């Protein structure tokens, strides 16, 4: 399926969020996820399904003022 990851389109196989994040190369705990602009708590990853055209945001700490 075709999805948007951090604003860029790409193809992905997995539609379960934990599997998709692994497929995309994310590991560890220093990131957080939003799907279509809504925050998805880590505890809900296993129950979250990603569909064609969904927008995924994966963020991590950066410096800020």
């Amino acid at each position, binding site marked *: 399926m075709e999805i948007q990851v*951090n*604003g860029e389109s790409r193809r992905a196989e997995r539609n379960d969020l934990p599997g998709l994040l692994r497929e*995309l*190369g*994310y*590991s*560890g*705990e*220093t*990131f*957080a*996820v*939003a799907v279509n*602009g*809504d*925050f998805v*708590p*880590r505890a809900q990853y296993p129950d979250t399904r990603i569909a064609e055209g969904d927008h995924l*945001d*994966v*963020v*991590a*700490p*950066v*410096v*800020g*003022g």
Partner: protein
Amino acid sequence: MSAKLELYGERFDSRLLVGTALYPSPAIMRESVRESGAEIITLSLRRQNPEQQQGKMLWDYIRESGCRLLPNTAGCKTPREAIALAEMSREIFRTNWLKLEVVGDDYNLQPDPYGLVEAARELVERGFKVLPYCTDDLLVCRKLLDVGCEVLMPWGAPIGTGLGLLNRYNLRTLRERLPDTPLIIDAGIGAPSQAAEAMEMGYDAVLLNTAIARAQEPVQMARAFRLAIESGRSAHAAGLMLQRQTASPSTPTLDMPFWQQSDPATQ
């Protein structure tokens, strides 16, 4: 007057909060934060590809620093964006403290008062300790208090400008009308003298980033700000003299030599 800064029930010795951005290097950032004496530092979240490791490196430093974290929602233009980013921050940084920013204008990064109040209301309901970056408008500030903010962070001037306290009348009004609310000047401070002035005015603390990070010698500037803020706070506690328009001699006039009652030059 309490010697410590109290925010949401927590006490701090330092009245300087600093940002972590724009430093020439991570090493200079760390040294500057240390020299500033800050106990609260701001940071943010941005999109990250899996191969990038900055997020983890920054996170490791932050844990070592022992500082309280104040994640921001910089760049968010709607309550929806700010609320989503706030939730992501709470999960990653494991704190419900939040520097809430809802920007209403790209040119001067002015806080959007309507979006800010709406986002603050929702975030307070969700259990966040919201420190809103706001304008210096008394009625907006009151609304933010009404929806549950316990600390306000009015701007001195637009972010990154270094213009200092642009609207002293409004800032003084806020201080006088909200005497029991912790007020932090956030943004626009360019020089230690401006930070000292805010503290002399009775502000509880100052949050800044660019003025230290973009100094030619950031570590030295961090020290300068620490001293200025201590100085301004001390001056406020001591009570400034009243200003007057006419001169008043400080040296005693009584028993002035050469003075003659009949001398026309002295009359």
